[in-house]
């Protein structure tokens, strides 16, 4: 089981809002697939998965604010 976390972003950015899930629970995920779009005030960016498996559970819903290091989803 792997947690997809909001990676430590460039300095000065401590949190971001989930704006769109590209994938849904149950989807097969490959390492490097872009899973979720996050947004800060200034920009939107896609977060890639760093593991392969099945997207077991979406932890942070669209609209949720997540801190750096916070769990976005569980991939199993």
């Amino acid at each position, binding site marked *: 089981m792997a947690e997809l976390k909001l*990676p*430590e*972003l*460039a*300095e*000065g*950015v401590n949190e971001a*809002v989930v*704006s*769109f899930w590209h994938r849904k629970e149950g989807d097969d995920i490959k390492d490097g697939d*872009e899973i979720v*779009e*996050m*947004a*800060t*005030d*200034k*920009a*939107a*960016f*896609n*977060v*890639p998965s760093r593991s392969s498996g099945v997207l077991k559970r979406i932890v942070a819903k*669209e*609209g949720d604010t997540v801190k750096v290091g916070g769990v976005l989803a569980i991939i199993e």
Partner: protein
Amino acid sequence: MKRFPCWLRRSVKIDKGLRDTESILKGLHINTVCQSARCPNIYDCFSRRKCTFLILGNCCTRSCRFCSIGGRGSLGPPDKREPFRIKEAVKRLGLSRVVITSVTRDDLGDAGAGHFADCVRILRGLDNDLDIEVLVPDFCGKRDLVEIVVSAGPDIFSHNIETVPRLYGTVRPGADYERSLDVIRYAKGLRAGMFTKSGMMVGFGETKDEVYSVMHDLRSAGCDIITIGQYLRPDHGCLEVQEFLHPSAFEQFSRWAQEAGFKKYSCSPFTRSSFIE
């Protein structure tokens, strides 16, 4: 929640290059506009070990409404060791092209012009072939300060016009459109072989005709290179984006730039004055 249009999304690329760049900069206590302004291109640039140095501190004496680099910290005298630290960073990052910009320092007698010149001269000592660009503030229009910077011999003298004249009051209070044009015109006149460059942001509510006029004003002032990019609000305290211009609008700006005779131009949503796509 409201999403950014599809052409304004980037991918997070966190690799060794990005972390190396961050650690080199941190170790040398160097500010970059990339970090201070939360540039969305930072992943692209830092992973390729590219950055734009921000000198003279991280605290600005102007309060432009598009910029989040504000009054935090204290204004001190220029750090005489800073040019040497930048030289070391250039070496460690392996840069062949350097862009140096600054906060605006109206509090200093020379508005920081001498410090810019020091940086250029010290970097020249590192490598004569180094391509050096300075992106300077308007120096309150003082021509002798422009001379100080130009005489140090940068390859590119850049000063951003930022927006159309009608919106200066809201976007860039404290600056003056004609004064900024004059800075470019005067610099070009001092050394014709030096490239001059200017950048502007769109999305503040300007019309395309106004953008067209600015391009022609810049050309008339002797500006060689132009950059046009989408304004993105760095934080809640800054001006709201009025419009996300479609990429086709930027293609039109590119055609206009070519027709106007700019030697080089970059017009795209993510174009920044030191990020040319």
